[in-house]
């Protein structure tokens, strides 16, 4: 896992390498949205000149970030440290594995 975190204008900016073999398709985007929604911080994801709110499944999917591409996470808010850490882990590590079956 690569960490290149820098503080800039109160926004916590982190690079995250997409580990899901399919990229940000709907299912992966859905997992990110569900996690992002558990935090109060605003989370913005940038890729290839496009910007999306991490709490918007269509926004994330429209980034068309494929496997191995590096997206930029911008997190601002009270729980930004926790949010950054959790989202980074999801994108870089957990997305490589299928979601745990429910129940």
């Amino acid at each position, binding site marked *: 896992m690569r960490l290149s975190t820098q503080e800039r204008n109160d926004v916590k900016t982190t690079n995250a390498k997409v580990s*899901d073999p399919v990229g940000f398709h709907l299912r992966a985007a859905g997992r990110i949205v569900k996690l992002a929604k558990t935090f109060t911080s605003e989370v913005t994801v940038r890729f290839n000149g496009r910007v999306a709110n991490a709490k918007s499944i269509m926004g994330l999917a429209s980034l068309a970030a494929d496997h191995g591409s590096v997206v930029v996470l911008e997190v601002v808010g009270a729980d930004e440290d926790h949010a950054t850490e959790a989202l980074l882990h999801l994108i870089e590590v957990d997305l490589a594995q299928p979601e745990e079956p429910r129940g």
Partner: protein
Amino acid sequence: MFTLHGIPASPGHAVARIHRIIREETKVRRRDLVAGEVETEIEVFRAALNQARSQISALVARLSDQLGQDEVAILDSQLLILEDELLVDRTEERIRTNLMGAEGALHDTMGDLIHQFDTLEDDYFRERVLDLRDVEERLLRRLQGIDDRPLQLPTHPHVLVTGDLTPSETASIGRTQVRAFVLGSGSKTSHVAILARSLGVPAVVGLGDQLAILDNANLVAVDGETGEVIVEPDSATIARVRQLSQKQITVNAKLEHLRDLPAETPDGRRLGMLTNIELPLEVEMARAAGAEGVGLLRTEYIYFQHQTIPSEEEQLAVYREIIDGMDGRAVLFRTLDVGGDKIQRYLGARKESNPFLGWRGIRFLLANRPLLKTQLRAVYRAAAHGPTRLMFPMITGVDELREAKELCRESCDELAAEGLDHDPGIPVGIMIETPSAAAVADLLARECDFFSIGTNDLIQYTLAMDRLNSRVAYLYQPLHPAILRSMKSIVAEAHAAGITVGICGEMASETKYAEVLLGLGFDDISVHAAQLPKIKQVVRWTPMPEAEGLLAELMSFATADEAVRHHESYLEAKKRRRNEGTGS
């Protein structure tokens, strides 16, 4: 009478009345609001969102044990779309600022989003547009209070004509009165195409907008071999197509008695007759054809059916279904083989200038170890329930084989440590489909339990011809001296090392090559289920000296052309002999 042309997706002929399913798109009723109506309209829109959400949640709750993980995931993402600010906020903004009715505002918002996806370069993401249209349709229906009805099929014989079928609709068709499928969308590998092939029902797909012509049609004749759909056929055409479909039934009936007989030459040489399958629903057809096992289970389609990588448990369930269905006959699993002509977008591979020489087969697997391990664990666990073999695609040398086997060992160690039921002793083999694997067959044979020759790739790589390039397609020459020599030496090296060697790929399924393959000395061949009885018949007619003699003659020629001519005259003479034989 006139003819439409589509993609042939399942062979056979049928003529029957059309049953047309038209999914009418709900019309958008546009209206302008007066200022005082805005808040009410937003309430109406929010109520529709809520209804759509509870509808989906109820569906998941009610069908959770019937739906697969992929269908649940689709519904899951639809729930998130219904909460998405890009949909909700922007629609409400249009209602408020532009004084638009909810339906128009929703439609325009969706239009923007769809446009955004449509302009993406990647096909995979572009296809997500379908999910958005689905959500819009659902919301429009809620806004207009329209009921959703399930798929209903007539009880008389019919040709099912529709734009597309969802996987769950396809699964519900089963053995109804469907004589043929005619679809607007789809490809040879779509769900419907696979189902049609396993039901032995002809299918033509990819007709696109031509489908609209069928709206008022009554009768169609479908040719699943050429992709022709003849609309309102005249009586001569009807008679011709009926005869063709009858002929197929007669041939099958004639070969029916062979089903439980072995593929054994008159002088006692036995050839294992296996089939290629892709999905559990084909098991029934494999057994009906008299297959002694599955000689190639392409696992790609099991993956492509899912929105994302199926988990170990999901794979285990599918693999077990196949193993249980084959009831003691061995199933040969080929690990995921993506790349080349197969859809890559699902696994996020990038466009390559030379995909057939690129990141595919074992190369892709070894670069995605967690993915491979998940599949290996599922196969080893499934193997505890019946005879199983495992093989790796696109091997070019011993190092790849060793690495793959190391992962097999790791998987088994893990399973043992976790106390999970599995069979660590299953045979592990490789596909021989690259010239380098053919060249080092002796080295590979020492370190694996069997070979299976994949002729499609072996021919294309050996003759350096891209089989998708029509200008060099003439070089697809299974009887080229380079191919015959290569196969002969692979078989010899396998047998010298005491391992078995089989063959899969299109060449194996062509009846005309059966004697050649017999002469080459293969232990088993794996073919399309529909071809199995015909090939078995040839084997039962051909003594080994005849097959070996033919091979020696074919190998004596310097060019493929000469070999082909000789082969044709051999087949002609044989046919004449048989006709005379049966005539006397």
